[in-house]
């Protein structure tokens, strides 16, 4: 079995993608679907993202930080409140210490940088998918 393939019998890990960048959402949708996630919702700002998470109750939320209406860092506590069982992973190009610490303190389970190597992002998502299966 390859690194990015998964056991077909297991129920797919359900994921919501929240990012204001349409191209980024498309790329992420393709990537996570390829890895074995099931995309159950998408949103392009924090406010909408909270609603989508509340209605779909996913296993994982991929959350951008810099977004209009409500930033990812502002939406994070609300997302945790409406669905405490979700693992929230920040995926952003913002890497300043204050923002990173803020998101980790608010309960983000991981913090990935968009500037990272695509393989690195893929690997982190595969680990997340495997955690989900257990």
């Amino acid at each position, binding site marked *: 079995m390859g690194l990015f393939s998964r056991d077909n019998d297991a129920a797919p890990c359900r994921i919501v993608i929240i990012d204001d960048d349409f191209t980024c959402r498309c790329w992420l949708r393709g990537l996570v679907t390829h890895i074995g996630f099931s995309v159950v919702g998408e949103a392009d700002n924090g406010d909408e993202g909270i609603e989508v998470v509340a209605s779909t109750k996913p296993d994982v939320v991929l959350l951008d930080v810099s977004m209009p209406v409500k930033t990812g860092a502002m939406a994070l506590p609300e997302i945790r409140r409406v669905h405490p069982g979700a693992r929230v992973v920040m995926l952003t190009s913002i890497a300043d210490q204050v923002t990173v610490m803020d998101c980790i303190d608010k309960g983000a389970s991981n*913090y990935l940088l968009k500037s990272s190597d695509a393989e690195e992002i893929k690997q982190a998502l595969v680990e997340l998918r495997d955690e989900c299966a257990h």
Partner: protein
Amino acid sequence: MANSDAPLFDLDSLLFDIMEDEQVDRSARRLLTRDDIKKLIEEKRRLRRELAKRRETKHEEPTLS
């Protein structure tokens, strides 16, 4: 006429102020690498596990009647 011996400004203190301002700015906007972030997350996870363990132990402690 101004006294030519008197300094117009204190260059040393001016440079010191600039250095201090820069330090504050750098610490406020310090950019982290992926490795820095990984370490922070690992540390946070360790603290969360410890906290959960402590809570569990507290629950298991027999109460004195």
